[in-house]
């Protein structure tokens, strides 16, 4: 019997090593896998590369991970938010590397990796600072910039309900990066509010099919 549901964060996180590339879902405060990030903070791996939309705020979640100084580089679209002082301090003192990516490019680079696409040409950012040094091409009279896929060892995402095969549904706009990160990473760990029996999730409504998910962790109601 296949059972991807586990209670053990330590077991799910055992493969995260120094230098691992970790995608973390969420947009602003919506869809952030808080419990999984806490698990990553408690884990010892360093020189991590984090791929996520924002760079955390306050002192918890991604901000706490950055504060632990085990993140070498962050690939994101919008690191500046209310209370993003931890990132800003590390950035100004050059203790963290930033690869700034337009949000649509970030999403599509993640999707490309998950779909086995070796990159793509996009109009976004053509002629701007964020396209400097990148290959360009004129296609059907329009200027495009080449963007490469984003590989990752792990994805930490937040689902709403999941089953033992790893099928997931999400809640409202917290879906954001979850489905594409699950596709892109070699190992996807999904925290869910509720674990349901196989067959409870309507096959017509499943958003992330279990093939993209390796571990499901039940965390209960949001903290």
């Amino acid at each position: 019997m296949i059972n991807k549901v586990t209670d053990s964060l330590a077991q799910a996180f055992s493969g995260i090593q120094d230098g691992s590339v970790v995608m973390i879902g969420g947009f602003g405060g919506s869809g952030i896998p808080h419990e999984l990030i806490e698990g990553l903070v408690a884990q010892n791996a360093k020189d991590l590369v984090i791929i996520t939309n924002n760079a955390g705020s306050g002192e918890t979640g991604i901000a706490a991970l950055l504060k632990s100084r085990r993140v070498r580089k962050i690939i994101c679209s919008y690191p500046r938010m209310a209370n993003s002082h931890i990132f800003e301090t590390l950035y100004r003192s050059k203790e963290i590397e930033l690869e700034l990516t337009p949000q649509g490019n970030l999403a599509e680079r993640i999707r490309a990796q998950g779909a086995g696409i070796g990159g793509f040409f996009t109009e976004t950012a053509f002629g701007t600072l964020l396209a400097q040094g990148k290959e360009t091409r004129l296609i059907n009279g329009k200027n495009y910039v080449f963007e490469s896929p984003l590989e990752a060892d792990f994805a930490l995402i937040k689902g709403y309900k999941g089953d033992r095969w790893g099928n997931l549904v999400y809640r409202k706009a917290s879906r954001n990066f979850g489905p594409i990160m699950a596709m892109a990473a070699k190992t996807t760990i999904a925290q869910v509010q509720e674990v349901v029996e196989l067959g409870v999730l309507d096959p017509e409504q499943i958003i992330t099919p279990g093939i993209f998910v390796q571990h499901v962790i039940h965390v209960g109601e949001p903290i």
Partner: protein
Amino acid sequence: MNQPSGVGLTLKPISRNEMAQKIASYIVEGTYVNLGIGMPTLVANYLPPDKEIFLHSENGILGMGPAPQDADIDWDLINAGKQPVTLLTGGSYFHQADSFAMMRGGHIDISVLGGFQVSQTGDLANWHTGEVDAVPAVGGAMDLAVGAKKTYVMMEHLTKDGKSKLVAQCTYPLTGIGCVSMVFTDLGIFEILPEGFFVVELFNEMSLAQVQAVTPVVLHTYP
């Protein structure tokens, strides 16, 4: 208030809410619209309630509704500015790659963005002041600027120290090249055509000479 030399009349700008109202009057029933964070968000307050207009939010919402009552706040349901919103009946949620495909694939009819500068060839600068120690953040701005069928910019005509934001060439780092179709300022509405800025409307009975005196680039009138 600026006293443009040689004109001697005080400029009579309209308020931000009046600007929002002007833009709203250009949005017809059935339009798919993305309102950027900051000032453009105000436009939603002036869309006619009896017309069905689809608001898109980059974090994965179509059919976005107004802010909820306090008791109904759901932090899984936020807008691009990370503020709580609601979903209209018939609305939908989707992941980031689909959300940005709606922009990048040219499915969004109108994108309304804030701006630092717009050039006479339709270049937009709105993401970076160019200050060396600024923490850069781009979010969806570059995708929205080039992806929508029409990009409208909503901004004050002059900076706080009286410099025109309508320029011959942007001096701030670019968000997109040749992407702006219309500019709505607090002095007037300007369309961008191959020949440059064309005056659609000037507010509060200001004269062309008066607005031209504070704008260092030719304001054309329609033949």
